[in-house]
């Protein structure tokens, strides 16, 4: 207040500045206290949980020779083994593509049922969201384990596992996207006398499609990454070769597997990023 009323005379101005400076230093002290008050429980939690799971910097250092040993046993990678990995690589891609495709097909109805503004009934909305949450919460490897028991070893279990998990992710993301569409475009369609379904078809869906495609491509990228490890539980793909070579102590071949996985993920990442740029 003083600053605004007495700005004209020099003494008043100086007083106002002094007051503001004082306020600022008080503010800083308060912030310091707040920071400390927050830091104490955070550090305590980290310290406690760290002890619980045996976080130990010394263990990393003492583990270094073992890591080094592991790496030297893998080096050099057995390049010729790449030829034997071609089939597994192709299978990995096939698993990811079909898993994602099934997820896309399942997501279209689930998106519409699981968005507040397109769902036929609020009960359907809640049921759909709950179902999607279940699919999202359970890792694809867990699904894969169960499916391997149910339908036997092989890529089929992997496809189903990827499909279910990706459906949960894709449909939930797109349902939220559908809820956030421009209301004006919906109002304009309602004003023409369009039915609820026509409003969804002509105002909601066109607005959600780009996000849907973009996220579906992203999901394909993630699915390829996931498909590289499904083999660890016997659901096909490169992961199977990886775990087999390790069990047989053929570490040079393991290294080749890891290299192929690395390249596959890198290439798919690059292609998917390019594709998404074109969509947006």
């Amino acid at each position, binding site marked *: 207040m003083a600053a605004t009323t007495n700005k004209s005379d020099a003494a008043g101005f100086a007083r106002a500045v002094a007051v503001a400076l004082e306020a600022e230093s008080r503010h800083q002290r308060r912030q310091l206290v707040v920071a400390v008050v927050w830091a104490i429980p955070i550090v305590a939690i980290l310290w406690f949980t760290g002890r619980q799971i045996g976080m130990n910097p010394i263990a990393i250092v003492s583990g270094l020779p073992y890591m080094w040993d592991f790496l030297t046993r893998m080096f050099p990678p057995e390049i010729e083994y790449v030829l034997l990995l071609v089939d597994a690589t192709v299978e990995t891609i096939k698993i990811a593509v079909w898993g994602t495709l099934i997820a896309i097909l399942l997501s279209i109805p689930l998106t519409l049922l699981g968005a507040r503004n397109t769902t036929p009934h609020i009960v359907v909305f809640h049921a759909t969201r709950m179902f999607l949450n279940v699919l999202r919460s359970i890792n694809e490897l867990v699904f894969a384990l169960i499916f391997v028991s149910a339908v036997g070893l092989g890529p089929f279990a992997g496809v189903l596992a990827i499909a279910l998990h990706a459906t949960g992710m894709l449909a939930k993301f797109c349902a939220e996207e559908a809820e956030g569409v*421009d209301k*004006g*475009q919906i*109002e*304009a*369609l*309602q*004003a*023409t*006398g*369009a*039915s609820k*379904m*026509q409003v969804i*078809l*002509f*105002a909601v869906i*066109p*607005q959600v*499609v*780009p996000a849907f495609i973009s996220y579906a491509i992203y999901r394909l990228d993630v699915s390829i990454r996931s498909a590289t490890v499904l083999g660890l539980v016997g659901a096909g793909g490169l992961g199977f070769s990886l775990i087999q070579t390790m069990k047989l102590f053929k570490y040079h071949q393991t290294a080749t597997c890891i290299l192929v996985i690395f390249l596959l993920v890198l290439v798919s990442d690059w292609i998917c990023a390019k594709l998404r740029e074109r969509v947006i």
Partner: protein
Amino acid sequence: MNTLAPSPTMSSTAALSRTTLSIQGLSKLYAGGTQALDNVSIDVREGEFLVILGPSGAGKSTLMRCLNRLVEPSAGKVIHNGEEISGPNKNLREIRHRFGMVFQQFNLVKRLSVLTNVLTGRLAYRSAWRSLFYNFSQEDKRIAIECLARVNMDHKTFQRADTLSGGEQQRVAIARALAQKPRIILADEPVASLDPKIARQVLGYLKQVSQELGITVLCNLHQVDYAREFAERIVGMSRGAVVFQGSAAELTDNIIQRIYYRDASADADRGDNRGRDDE
């Protein structure tokens, strides 16, 4: 036969023609306690270009949305050609398709083509299942192109709506409203987002289709000079109530004062209510 044949006699006889839309004692109280409309009564004549003038927050948008039932009025009646279209148990789709609507923000579906946007004006005439594959009849397409030609936008038929300028988008929006074959067009601040030159052009198209097709136009505006230039009749609104009805010539500075600023005595009267009607 050209279904959009002009009726040049309409505008010249507007002053004499019959009432098509009768708004009687319409009120809207929003759930938050905002009295957006307060006992509004207006008689709209067949084929006229009626401007509803008032500052933002005067209740103009709510009035329009109460007519085509995007908003449910709290009280009052709307009678269209002798038939009450307010009240429960009415076929909303049927009522809405009688009114074409044009919005301030154009509200085109941005990712669809100009043509598809105009075709959405035909949806009320089609079953939902047929629209499932975004398919329209040849007849609908013909109507849509004719409507585009009326606003001189047929050369952009296949462009995506979001590639157009604001003025072009609003012209497409007018074409969409026309494709409904409406008897009445509700234009809610159609030029508020456009610069003056383009604004005059868009209002010109609206007035032209009104005259050529004999469509009644209700147009919300907040700019006095546009109202003077285009209106055949003006309704002044302030704080949810009608404070003036008359021709452009009758719109004196004194009345403009009443619409936009309200006199001090009125403010004192309603002092306790102030601030509740800003939407």
